[in-house]
């Protein structure tokens, strides 16, 4: 799946978190337990592409986002950023690369330091990267403030986060990520905390910045409807595995994996005339400590084929152009 145009290339990435047991429990059990948050996923992110990572809570999408940025260390696998293997780089070696890769967090009420001025918050990555004289940094900050529509910039520069609304705070977070001119940005549920009427304007702002600067954008969300309109390509995750990956049009019109179908069925539609009788699958996402054997979805799958699903893990294979699916229904 490697492609020369890819900005980020992830191969068989795993992140297992050890489970801490009590002293006696660890004596009895003898073995170590792990939460297999991300368990072997691969994908490529092209230049200027918006790639959506969709899944329920506990599917490992946030862990994936943080691991590819090396905010947490991967357990195994490979992360290649612009042709360079960054999997085993130390934090110090990562530092010069950080101005190329940035993140926007979910909660703008917690991701901004309440004691810092907006201008200082946005300027901090520039100072850490020693990107010039303080006056140059100030100039850059004022420019980006204007770009994210916090005008007049001179006024917003001297405000504190508590003086801003949720939407404005998230604009500050967007400005902080884009001020260093990154080539790759991870956005982890960037609009889920915002009110519906505000949401679209922040999305639109991010879209403009991404397209203008041809940034590669990893958009993490649980909202399939939003992802469908915002992303070029979408990958669906379930319990640390990638179940399906396709262009957003293809994924919605021609879902192949039963899990993707179930997700699409469950998304409410804002049109009372198209109310359908829904097949809602039973149960909830199982624990990632002891995930089901074989295909992880087999315990809830409406198209369960029998022993093969229980015993053998289906590989992610290409069934159409750029359409990958991991399901035994599509075995040769």
């Amino acid at each position, binding site marked *: 799946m490697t492609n020369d145009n890819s900005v980020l290339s992830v191969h068989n990435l795993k992140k297992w978190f050890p489970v801490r047991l009590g002293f006696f429990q660890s004596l009895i059990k003898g073995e170590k337990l792990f939460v297999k948050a991300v368990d072997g996923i691969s994908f490529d992110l092209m230049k200027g592409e918006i790639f959506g990572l969709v899944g*329920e809570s506990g599917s490992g999408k946030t862990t994936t986002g943080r691991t590819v940025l090396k905010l947490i260390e991967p357990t195994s696998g490979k992360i290649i950023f612009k042709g360079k293997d960054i999997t085993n780089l130390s934090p110090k070696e990562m530092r010069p690369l950080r101005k190329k890769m940035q993140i926007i967090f979910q909660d703008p009420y917690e991701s901004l330091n309440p004691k810092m001025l907006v201008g200082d918050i946005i300027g901090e990555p520039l100072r850490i990267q020693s990107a010039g004289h303080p006056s140059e940094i100030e100039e850059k900050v004022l420019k980006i403030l204007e770009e994210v529509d916090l005008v007049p910039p001179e006024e917003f520069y001297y405000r504190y986060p508590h003086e801003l609304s949720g939407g404005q705070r998230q604009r500050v977070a967007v400005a902080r990520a884009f001020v260093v001119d990154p080539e790759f940005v991870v956005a982890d549920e960037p609009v889920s905390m915002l009110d*519906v*009427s*505000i949401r*679209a304007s922040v999305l639109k702002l991010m879209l403009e910045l991404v397209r203008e600067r041809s940034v590669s954008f990893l958009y993490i969300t649980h909202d399939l*409807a939003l992802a469908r309109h915002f992303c070029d390509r979408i990958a669906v995750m379930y319990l640390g595995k990638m179940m399906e990956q396709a262009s957003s049009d293809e994924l919605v019109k021609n879902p192949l994996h039963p899990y993707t179908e179930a997700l699409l069925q469950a998304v409410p539609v804002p049109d009372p005339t198209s109310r359908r009788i*829904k097949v809602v699958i039973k149960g*909830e996402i199982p624990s990632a400590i002891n995930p089901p054997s074989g295909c992880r979805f087999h315990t809830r799958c409406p198209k369960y084929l029998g022993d093969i699903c229980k015993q053998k893990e289906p590989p992610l294979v290409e069934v159409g152009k750029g359409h990958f699916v991991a399901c035994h229904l599509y075995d040769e």
Partner: protein
Amino acid sequence: MLDPMLNIKDLTVYYKILRGYVKAVEGVNLQLKKGETLGLAGESGCGKTTMALTIMRLLPPNGRIVRGKILFDGKNIVELPEDEVRKEIRWKKIAIVFQGAMNALNPVYNIGEQIVEAIRYHEPNVDKNEALERAKKLLELVGIDPSRVKNYPHEFSGGMRQRAMIAMALACNPKLLIADEPGTALDVIVQAQVLKLLVELKQKLDLSLILITHDLSIISETCEKAAIMYAGKLVESGSVYKIFKEPLHPYTQGLIAAFPDIHAPRAEIKSIEGQPPDLLNPPRGCRFHPRCQYAMDICKIKSPPYIEVEKDHFVACHLVKS
């Protein structure tokens, strides 16, 4: 024609805080017929939860019903003494499923004890064993194995806790169920399961339902009627078909455009400029005028009346003439 089961007239609720009065709900008129499902939608802080708490007479001490009536089966709930509300109305006639099922259950009592408490508080002559049997039946009704009646909330998943909350709300056979953001903190599939359960229960038990949510698409999937609130006022209400297909108020139009339809062709999602006002000092005239693209001079001075443009379709906007 039947009288509406719930008839809210000119309801106004303020919260007193240090800096003045928060005008959370102002002059709301709303009707609900028996067996109807009403979706109440709006952004955070628009007063939708305050409406629910007011109907239940559960306002916090700093909240006050300034004026208005809530007629339930002809009885004005606003004027009833607390004792009578507790004995006659709350839980027996009107019950509520609170927002955030994760935190609404008491972690140190098991599920059965909590349901038994609800039953015996409102129906003191029921003995313990009988109440426990009823609790088991209720759990079965919402799709939880009755043998788990002795489980504690932490042993339940998010979806099951939400189901347990619904079971508890149904403990005294209410006629009206209010569900405040029943799907919010849940994953899409679990949310769909819970909504399906609510719709099934409504039919099975002949309930009337008020569904409070910020997510318009949930209303379009489950309700017959929709009411849209903005900054403490009702801006539009009507059948879901009218609201979604021919919305009249600019705010309703904007809100609907802000919801992406997953099956529609890929398109840009629209937003409404600006942000909701501070309800300590709401704007004069129409509360939506600072964000409205059609705002006229009159909108800044005079609050538009809430008029019936056609049968059961109400709107409050100077653009719309009856």
